[in-house]
């Protein structure tokens, strides 16, 4: 009689094991079904956070040496300052590699404010290409010297861009913030520059992005200064400006490495995430930064085990992963897909009951 007991245990174990295996298999199938249409790492574009046909067309023309489409795109952006600074960045990064077309542009239209601001911003991008993205201690003396030299040149180029720009254009001011950051300008100087920016565009997303970097501990500020800056921006900005993203960015930049996994589930983190979700819902659909916000939100939501919500944002941005937090990793597409798939599995397991 006593011999039957182990058999019962083995049979029960076998039953549960088979059931869990079956369930896992079902969840996997379900996840595959849910994830149909999501792209593998090799098909993720790591240069951009969302598809932007206009920018692609401009870049394609530039690689053929044609600057006119770039000039047209900037003219078309007009006083949409978010779009304008975004496009200037796209064009300037190209000019940091090869600026033959930019010289042609400037020769044809000597006092073109668009060419001037691209020229200045390209210097900043060039300076960073010389420096590399490592920590200061890993940067060689040669790299640091070149970085500072080119940034100092850029200062003069920005002075020219400012003198040519429309009075209400914040672009040549806000694009100087990385330069201030690179040259470790004193806080007082940044406050002055910031006043020029906010007088023209008080809730500019990219301006806040650069300023937060300046105030962060790894550049010219501290974790506390960055937190205060982000909190104040989020508290005063109107809905739809996407500035509620910055408390999350600041937290991620200063704490993500050391924080425990459950930190994302703390009430204040949930509140920050919910505020950003509401902001995204209120933003204009063609805001050039809304995709970036979705990327970080999808990351936070996954960490908070809010897998369905995360998946909703992953679906909207899939295919383009040039955004925080992925671009901090050596293989952004890989890490993006890893986090996305864990959201997928979580969602599938939940749906399966």
């Amino acid at each position: 009689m006593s011999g039957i007991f182990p058999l019962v245990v083995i049979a029960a174990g076998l039953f549960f094991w088979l059931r869990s295996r079956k369930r896992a298999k079902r969840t996997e199938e379900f996840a595959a079904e849910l994830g149909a249409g999501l792209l593998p790492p090799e098909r993720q574009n790591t240069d951009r956070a969302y598809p932007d046909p206009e920018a692609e067309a401009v870049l394609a023309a530039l690689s053929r040496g044609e600057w006119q489409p770039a000039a047209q795109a900037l003219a078309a952006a007009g006083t949409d300052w978010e779009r304008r600074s975004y496009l200037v960045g796209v064009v300037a990064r190209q000019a940091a590699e090869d600026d033959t077309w930019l010289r042609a542009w400037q020769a044809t239209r000597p006092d073109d404010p668009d060419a001037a601001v691209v020229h200045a911003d390209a210097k900043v991008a060039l300076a960073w290409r010389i420096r590399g993205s490592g920590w200061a201690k890993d940067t060689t003396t040669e790299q640091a010297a070149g970085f500072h030299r080119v940034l100092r040149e850029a200062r003069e180029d920005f002075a020219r861009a400012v003198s040519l720009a429309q009075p209400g254009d914040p672009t040549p001011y806000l694009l100087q913030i990385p330069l201030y950051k690179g040259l470790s300008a004193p806080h007082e100087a940044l406050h002055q520059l910031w006043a020029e920016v906010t007088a023209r565009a008080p809730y500019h997303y990219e301006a806040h992005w650069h300023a937060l970097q300046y105030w962060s501990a790894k550049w010219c500020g501290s974790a506390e200064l960055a937190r205060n800056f982000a909190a104040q921006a989020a508290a005063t900005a109107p809905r739809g400006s996407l500035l509620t993203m910055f408390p999350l960015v600041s937290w991620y930049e200063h704490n993500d490495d050391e924080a425990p996994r459950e930190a994302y589930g703390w009430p204040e983190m949930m509140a920050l995430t919910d505020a950003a979700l509401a902001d995204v819902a209120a933003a204009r659909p063609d805001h050039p930064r809304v995709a970036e916000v979705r990327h970080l939100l999808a990351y936070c939501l996954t960490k908070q085990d809010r897998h369905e919500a995360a998946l909703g944002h992953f679906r909207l941005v899939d295919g383009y992963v040039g955004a925080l937090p992925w671009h901090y990793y050596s293989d952004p597409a890989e890490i993006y897909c890893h986090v996305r798939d864990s959201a997928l599995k979580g969602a599938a397991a939940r749906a399966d009951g």
Partner: protein
Amino acid sequence: MGASPRAVRAFVLLAGFYLVALCVLGVLAGAVAAAWVWAPHLAAIKVTVISALLGLPVLRGVFTLGTGAGDREEALPVTEADQPELWYTVRSLADRSGTRAPDEILLTGEVNAAVSEDARLLGMLPGRRRLYLGVPLLTGLTEPQLHSVIAHELGHYGNADTRLAGITRRGRDCVIRTVAAFQEQERKRIGKERSRQEEAAARRLRKGRKAKRVDTRGAGFGYRMMAKPFQAYARFYLRATSSVGRQQELAADRMAVRVAGRDATASALREIAALDTAHDFYQSRYALLGVEAGLLPPRGEVFGGLRHLLADPRRRSGLAELRYELPPGEESPYDSHPPVAERVRLIEALPDDGLAAAPARPALTLLRDAQRVLAQLEDVLLTSEALAMERVDWPELTHRGMHALAVAAAEPLRTALATAGVAPGSASGDLIALLDRADAGQLWLTAGHLPKSPEAAQATGRAAREFLRPALESGTRRLAELALVEKAGAYWELSWSEQARLRLPGAAYAGGTEETVAAAVRAAVADVPDTAPLRTLLGH
């Protein structure tokens, strides 16, 4: 005296050092005895020899059984017959400090003065006393300031302090010397081992085999092991006695104040801080400027030329700032000196003694026939290679020295030009070839042959150009300067107030030529090159 209990403790600690030495020697002796009793004779002989080699530095350091010539600094001894004024001054200073006058006075080339004593038996028995005087001090200090410096050094051995404190001072010397003796042996050992291995590697290479890496980790091991207990004890000892050491420094300062006056002592400390910087600067920018080209200034000027720099009004104002801002002290367990700034503060807080720093003669006047002494000093301090160098006067030294530096600095660019297919020629020929390439849009293709760091080699596009730009610009500038020397009779002009500058004959002021060259070079290597200004300059 408040320092006494601490001084007694220092004495006991010093005796402990003695004990460590005896233990180590005992262990060595025991090993030898054991080897003779139990081991075969050959091994016993080996152990004896090794023990003797290891034990010698202990005996030498601790008991100072005849200081080896190796640890004496290179210096020029001056006799009383040669320099009666200097000797008289030192004797009367020793007298007023209440201590024995040195047995020898030696001149050195450093900004430093020191008194050393080969005391025996851990400093309990007095020995031969030497005063080392740096010639730059004689050049840069006034007579009262030098008195203060010498009084300070003698003050360390003064009877005015307690006898035990004097022993502590000698003891510190002994401890440091013992540790230094070990390090010296270890260095020699490693040096020998290195050259032996390098020779072996060269032989291997000659025979076509792969050379082994030179590894000196094994050499000097014995000495390192021997030194360990001493170094550990020395660190402990020096730290334990550092407060005594510091107090003795301050007491020596008070002695200097009593003998030479408050203001002379404080100003001497400030002056030495400034002189230190000035002397380093003088050595690299003036005295040794032409060494690469095999040139030295006239005899006596290698150490004596500092006076020209110190006499220059513009340099004087620069030095005045150094005097005002004293360097913050560096903490080292082996340094018993409190920071200079602290010492000056304490001295300047003393009441006025009425011995205000009146205008005084420079200390160099204490030397009879200074020019001859400076020349003799060179014979003692310079290497035989240096002594064999050509001696030229300062203006010629400046021009030829700077020319040689420019030739060396232009070399990478000229090599790059040669790699790019330009037949090497004169400086102006090479420069014209470079400008032709720039006009043909091939400037960066040529610059691409310059030496590159790994980061520069990886860069592409504009970033690659920016990595090369500093080397291209400075190389082109040197080449342009050389071309101007060739074509237009330009020359580097000596100045004691600022760096040597290139000057075209007839140029309005010295900086003008360099500015013009720099601007023309910048235009020639710009993204859109304009070689016209440089060509015009050369056509001059």
